């Protein structure tokens, strides 16, 4: 335990991982977000991951009520929020207890000693005070009486109640960490001024406490070292920090503008997808129409109605909601209307682990409907590219006239990262299949000869009145048909239509090695951890490990088999028990697909990946 004063020694670090933990009400999410935003503004690459309990306000001091926020910042490329942390800021014993395992041995822990009361220590199920019993010998523990210091800092401020005083102690911790990592408090002060515009007293209090923490760290020199992190080498341009769910919502805004259509969202709240609804309802200025429906089924069916009437239609959900939407998704496929379904996956089955991440809805997405009912399936893989794949989902559904399911997951949905802002002007064109006016010999099921997309005749257009529905369609007129040959033909057409999407999506590419001993395969939200692990191995001399990441699941990219054939071993890594591996086996014969699966509600850790790949690369 370090208690002696140490002179400040400036170190330059490539990357650092910090975790802020405390009670749900301690403001840890805000503290973490402020630290990552400030770092991004200084030019660091960042990746963040919030960890909050399923309970909204769990009992104070309890182990299950701990809320945390992890941020990974660096002067190098950052692909994940990281596994083990360099600095843990624990606002109470429960936070320390539940997060100590993640602190790298020898690294730093800052605790609020005022929170280590007998009662709180008992609530955290410690038998003795961990600050006194020697159990933290292997760490640098910085003990700060944050609560008292916060009270002291605010003692001259009149009119502030005790609750508000205690609430601002997270700013004390933030101030300290700002000084340690050589960040300024400027961005956060600006933020406070904006957020509490109507309450000058709260602005003053928080600013005072923030500065006190900063000066405390500086003048009392209690901190063993201070670090600075230089800006990362990132492509030039204008950036902002964006969360996956926000990026996803914005991708649809961009697609609506580009295609000239109005955006309709039918949605029912569900963790972890609700933030997409929260984001889109803010954008009525772009004409977004959002209906919080009575249930998941009304979410998708109202979107089908909006699509029939000519809107770019969207419904958002998570696993259990997708199950409820299954029948309606089949209808959208049958009547061949554009529709995007977003599934932000969480731990399953049933209610499962709502606030945790998993990739176990893949087979439900592919096959979870009655009859032969293929749909396009794509998956975003980073918080920032949620924007691109939302846009892509809209482009594919509008151009191919069949539903698209876009998969995300709790990890990338709640994580944030720098996003090099894309203007709508630089996004690809979107060509709709809208029939603007009547013509001779027109039929609702006339198709584009290349894509097989049927035309989109929208109510309100004179002379194109027609009926569609869930019963099998006659192949041209769309009238009800029970003809056996017609049913076989229509089944083939609907499948072929999906297959032909291959001609309109990018080929699969490999990173780090184009051929060799081992191909690491991933899909969706595991990109960050897999990429970092293979990169680390390459830098350590493992030059024959390649990495292929799938964003297009159905159909698979055309060149998939050619890429698989270039490696001696293939390992498919996913956060389920092997669903994508099963899809690959169904599509490609003669390969031995090894599997690395994890089903703990958590992302892959760097350590487990590196170890596994090393074993296989021999």
């Amino acid at each position: 335990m370090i208690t002696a004063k140490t002179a400040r020694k400036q170190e330059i670090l490539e990357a650092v991982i910090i975790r802020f933990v405390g009670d749900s009400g301690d403001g840890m999410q805000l503290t973490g977000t402020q630290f990552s935003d400030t770092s991004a503004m200084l030019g660091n690459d960042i990746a963040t991951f919030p960890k909050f309990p399923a309970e909204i306000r769990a009992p104070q001091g309890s182990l299950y009520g701990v809320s945390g926020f992890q941020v990974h910042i660096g002067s190098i490329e950052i692909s994940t929020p990281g596994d083990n942390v360099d600095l843990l800021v624990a606002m109470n014993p429960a936070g320390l207890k539940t997060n100590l395992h993640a602190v790298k041995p020898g690294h730093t822990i800052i605790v609020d000693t005022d929170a280590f009361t007998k009662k709180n220590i008992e609530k955290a199920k410690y038998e003795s005070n961990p600050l006194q019993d020697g159990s933290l010998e292997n760490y640098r523990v910085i003990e700060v009486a944050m609560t008292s210091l916060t009270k002291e800092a605010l003692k001259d401020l009149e009119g502030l109640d005790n609750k508000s005083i205690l609430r601002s102690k997270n700013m004390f911790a933030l101030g300290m960490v700002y000084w340690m990592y050589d960040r300024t408090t400027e961005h956060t002060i600006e933020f406070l001024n904006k957020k509490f515009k109507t309450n000058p007293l709260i602005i003053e209090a928080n600013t005072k406490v923030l500065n006190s923490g900063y000066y405390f760290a500086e003048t009392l020199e209690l901190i063993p070292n201070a670090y600075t992190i230089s800006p990362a080498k990132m492509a030039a341009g204008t950036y902002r920090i964006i969360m996956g769910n926000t990026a996803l919502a914005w991708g649809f805004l961009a697609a609506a503008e580009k295609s000239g259509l109005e955006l309709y969202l039918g949605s029912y709240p569900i963790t972890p997808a609700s933030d997409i609804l929260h984001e889109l309802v803010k954008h009525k200025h772009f004409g977004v129409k959002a209906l919080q429906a009575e249930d998941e089924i009304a979410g998708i069916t109202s979107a089908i109605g909006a699509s029939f009437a000519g809107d770019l239609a969207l419904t958002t959900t998570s696993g259990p909601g997708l199950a409820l939407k299954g029948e309606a998704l089949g209808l959208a496929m049958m009547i061949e209307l554009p529709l995007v379904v977003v599934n932000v996956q969480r731990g399953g089955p049933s209610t499962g682990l709502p606030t945790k991440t998993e990739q176990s809805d893949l087979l439900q997405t592919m096959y979870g409907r009655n009859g032969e009912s293929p749909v396009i399936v794509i998956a975003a893989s980073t918080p920032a590219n949620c924007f691109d794949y939302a846009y892509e989902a809209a482009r594919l559904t509008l151009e191919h006239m069949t539903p698209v399911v876009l998969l995300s997951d709790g990890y990338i949905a709640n994580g944030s990262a720098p996003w090099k802002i894309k203007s709508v002007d630089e996004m690809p064109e979107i060509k709709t299949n809208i029939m603007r006016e009547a013509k001779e010999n027109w039929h609702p099921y006339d198709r584009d000869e290349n894509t097989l997309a049927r035309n989109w005749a929208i109510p309100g257009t004179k002379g194109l009145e027609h009926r569609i529905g869930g019963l099998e369609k006659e192949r041209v007129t769309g009238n009800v048909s029970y003809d056996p040959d017609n049913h076989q033909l229509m089944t083939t057409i609907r499948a072929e239509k999906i297959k032909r999407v291959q001609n309109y999506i990018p080929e699969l590419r490999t990173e780090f090695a184009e051929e060799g001993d081992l191909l690491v395969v991933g899909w969706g939200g595991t990109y960050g951890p897999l990429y970092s692990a293979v990169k680390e191995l390459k830098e350590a001399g493992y030059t024959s490990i390649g990495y292929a990441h799938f964003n297009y699941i159905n159909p698979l990219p055309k060149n998939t088999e050619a890429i698989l054939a270039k490696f001696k071993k293939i390992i498919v890594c996913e956060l389920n028990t092997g669903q994508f591996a099963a899809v690959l086996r169904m599509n490609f014969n003669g390969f031995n697909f090894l599997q690395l699966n994890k089903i703990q509600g958590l992302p892959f850790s760097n350590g487990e990946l590196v170890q596994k790949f090393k074993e296989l690369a021999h």
Partner: protein
Amino acid sequence: METTAEKKYTFKDFTSDQEVRWCPGCDDYAILRAMQKALPEMNVKKEDVVFISGIGCSSRFPYYMDTYGMHSIHGRAPAIATGVKLANPDLSVWVITGDGDAMAIGGNHFIHVLRRNINLNIILFNNEIYGLTKGQFSPTSLVGQKTKSSPNGNTQPPFSPGELALGAQARFFARIGGNTPKEMTQLFIECEKFKGTSLIEVLQNCPIFNDGCFEEFTNKDVRTDKQMFVEHGKPMIFGKDRDKGVVLNGLKLEVVTIGEDGITEKDILVHNAKEQDPTLHQMLVRLHYPKVTGIIRSFEDTTLEERMNSLTAEVKANSSFRKTNDLFFAGETYEVN
């Protein structure tokens, strides 16, 4: 929507080329013809008319109308129609549903569409039986009713569509017998005029699985005596001799005879369909003798799309965002060189 139709339509303009496939003698034919006759009398263009149905015998209806239409999935028509209307409020949107479709599998959408008061029309074909699946009891079947799935009699008490609708805050509710097409045509025209969700319950005979279910008050010989067709602003009088009327006795409706016990026409209740308080409308819905038909409730209120549109207009007026770039590049951005 432009309010002047370009040409005068006839019922043929709304008749599709598809062969109608309901059972011979089904009231659905009368409803279809009433609709095809009503549409030319409405101020709507053919291309603006959309019929959305769920599943069931009645839900084949859109195929027979030469308008835009969707025969969707079981129970979901109100939700689909909501999306259609929000996407394009200029359309004249109709939901075609039955007692099973609306009140069993689609019960949730049915009550919520009424609560929201979006401007669309719902025609509920109530025959107190499942027809398409060949004769099981429905949520409006009577206790004791013997059906394929209740051979010893139904044990589940029924919903009254009108009571359920008023409980769900329906602003417009009308009821009509399936064998009075002239009045039905008029009601269709009235419900299109009404701004808000309009619900018409058609008492529809199923000659195959529930023949004669409403006979006691729809039969031609008895209906003037057993039915009371109400009109807003007019006294509640019925009967072949127009001598029966309804009065309020304490908290109950009571049938009286004009000219007996000193009762004059002045004592008879005058129907106020436009009253916000639905208490009396509920009582009329519940009345068994006489069975009340016509527009029971017609209370004009703000619609969902009016609320949404005014919010959008307000947000647009106060926002500096016109293009998505305005949003993407606003706020906390930073440059990397």
